[in-house]
């Protein structure tokens, strides 16, 4: 016999049903009370922001999705007077122009070469940036040595491989944007490392040269560097040697990016404790071994997020080459806008929206990666 039955009937034998959680401290209403309506000014702000969103967001959705025209062959598809309904974004324009936006005037029969290069680039980038893929050393060799050579011959052509040459003034659109940003990163990273080492060198002349180069380039806008590459570079070269106009901006962009990369790498070098240098020196290794095997691997690892951020800036800055007449994505979009076959009031907005979406997807993706890497590295340091 248990105690409960003996002591009488006033002790419950069955548990009460659990109460519902109080509505004001848990659940969506409480969340709204805490996060949206916690005080009078807060409520006012919430209402204002909600009103602003109400004014801005539905028309955007209406324009870009609901009223948008998805298919069509020419401007008639996107003219309000022809279609007989309000017309939003003219995606038909982007759709018919997608080949031009992607490859420029690259011959259609040769476009598989561009696709192949893109595939190689994706492989290289994933190999290097995804921490769980092994053999990073081979990955670096692939991305910084094999890939550039292969890409060069694939894109420009090589008679001995049976690839007909394609002049760079036929290149355009996303292809050029990717070429400039990839060359920018592939050249600027090693060059930036060298400049950063030079800036921290004990040899006065090397240090002076590095400092002057870095500060000079960082002190001027990219557009003046591009103007310089475009107008002054041909003057400085022996007569009759006219470098390709794409090559000129590649030189300009690479040198520009190298100066920024140098400062990022220098930040990493400075973050390495002195003991690492001293430890290396006490083991008797030389300068290049110390840097290459001990300091740089650590320094570069901690600045990966910053390198990616610099690369995001570089990627956005490639759009500036359109000002000096290179047909990158922005320029191909601009050039398509003057086409009378697609002259509608909404063509411009559609073209710009496509370009903005392209840049946003890439840059946002890279910045998410760099933040993820930052968190990963931060935990690595705390343990």
């Amino acid at each position, binding site marked *: 016999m248990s105690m409960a039955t003996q002591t009488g009937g006033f002790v419950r034998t069955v548990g009460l049903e659990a109460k519902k959680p109080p509505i004001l401290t848990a659940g969506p209403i409480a969340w709204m009370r805490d996060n949206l309506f916690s005080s009078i000014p807060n409520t006012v702000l919430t209402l204002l922001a909600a009103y602003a969103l109400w004014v801005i967001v539905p028309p955007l959705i209406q324009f870009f999705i609901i009223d948008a025209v998805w298919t069509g062959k020419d401007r008639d598809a996107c003219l309000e007077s022809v279609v007989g309904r309000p017309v939003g974004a003219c995606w038909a324009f982007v759709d018919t122009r997608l080949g031009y936006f992607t490859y420029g005037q690259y011959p259609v029969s040769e476009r598989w070469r561009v696709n192949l290069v893109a595939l190689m680039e994706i492989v290289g980038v994933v190999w290097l940036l995804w921490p769980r893929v092994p053999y990073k050393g081979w990955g670096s060799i692939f991305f910084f040595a094999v890939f550039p050579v292969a890409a060069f011959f694939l894109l420009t052509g090589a008679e001995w491989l049976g690839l007909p040459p394609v002049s760079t003034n036929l290149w355009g659109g996303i292809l050029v944007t990717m070429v400039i940003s990839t060359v920018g990163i592939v050249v600027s990273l090693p060059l930036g490392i060298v400049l950063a080492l030079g800036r921290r060198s004990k040899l006065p002349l*090397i240090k002076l040269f590095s400092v002057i180069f870095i500060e000079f380039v960082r002190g001027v806008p990219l557009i003046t560097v591009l103007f310089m590459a475009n107008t002054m570079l041909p003057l*400085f*070269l022996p007569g009759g040697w006219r470098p390709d106009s794409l090559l000129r901006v590649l030189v300009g962009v690479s040198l520009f990016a190298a100066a920024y990369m140098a400062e990022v790498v220098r930040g990493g070098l400075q973050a390495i404790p002195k003991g690492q240098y001293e430890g290396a020196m006490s083991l008797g290794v030389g300068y290049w071994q110390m840097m290459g095997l001990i300091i740089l691997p650590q320094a570069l690892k901690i600045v990966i997020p910053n390198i990616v951020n610099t690369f995001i800036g570089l990627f956005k800055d490639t759009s500036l080459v359109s000002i000096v007449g290179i047909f990158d994505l922005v320029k191909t979009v601009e050039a398509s806008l003057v086409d009378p076959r697609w002259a509608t009031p909404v063509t411009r907005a559609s073209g*710009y929206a496509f370009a903005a979406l392209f840049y946003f997807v890439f*840059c946002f993706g890279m910045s998410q990666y760099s933040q993820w890497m930052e968190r990963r590295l931060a935990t690595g340091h705390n343990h």
Partner: protein
Amino acid sequence: MSVQDAMQGNGAKVSLLNDPKARGMAYQAILLVLIVFFFYEAISNAVVNLRAAKIASGFGFWNNTAGFDVNQTLIPFSSNDGSTYGRAFFVGLLNTLVVAAIGIVLATILGFIMGIARLSRNWIIAKVAATYVEVVRNTPLLLQLLVWYNAVLKPLPEPRNSLSMPGSIYLNNRGLVMPAPIAGENFNWTWIALGIAIVASIVFARYARKVQDSTGRILPRGLVALGLIIGLPALAFLAAGSPLTFDLPRQSRFNLTGGMQVFPEFAALLAGLTFYTAAFIAENVRAGILAVSKGQSEASMALGLTGGQTLRLVVIPQAMRVIIPPLTSQYLNLTKNSSLAVAIGYPDLVQVFAGTVLNQTGQAIEVILITMGVYLTISLVTSVAMNYYNSRKALVER
């Protein structure tokens, strides 16, 4: 002994090849030779090429008459009265500085608002600010400028159908036309009064600090300064008989005449630079505020400071130490980015000087070097000022 000799590098036992000093000298000599060779080649090629292209060299073009007009100038410039290329340089420089200065002020205000909003406990405000920052930061400035100029300002109605707003303000595809203030003859007294008010506020602030240091009494510094700076000029303005009239824009058949015009190129550039830079400033502000540890505000609360005092006297001064250095580099970026004006035709330094003047004179080397020199000077002056500020504000550690 021999080890010591070897370490000092003065023993005969060390081969010259392995002597760090000799190696260093050799590296530097090689670099020097390379640089000298590089410059020699470049300059001698340039001389030959310039002679072949029959382009003059030197800065003689500076005083030559420029045969073009600029539509937005702060100083008079016209091809009719023989303005020179040198004057065109100053026109461009002033336009650059104006758009940069206004842009810096607006971007700072918007950036601080957005940075604080992103940390707001109000969910919707924080998300709106975050969306703004991510969208703006992840698209190229050039594209944003093109959108502002070609997609927002250009489709506005023709001048004859201007959108009119209260206060005689008109908006059309040639810009924003506003009433132009015209100062009367005694208006200068207002400026003088403003100067006196600023000086008086500084004097009062010093006095208030002295009083606080000696007695602990806090005088209303901000209120007094506000009263002085608004009140004194207002009094002078009224005493002089309100000497300010407005030139109102009038709508004629095809166009608007009179008033003050803000050109669409300027407006688009300003809007683009402001919104773009503000997104970066917002991130700096957010990082700065997050960098102040929570213990600081808790300690100040424990000392009995109010919420406002905690923010003003404890959190913000420490956050500013983190915010100011990246903020200055954002200001520099904004100034350098104003060179994108060339894409939408605002006559800034690059558009006027490195564009039109370069095309007319063909003297690429001189023109580009001068243009770069200007930006370089601005950057160097800013970084010197920055280093001075940093050395004053940096945390003094034990």
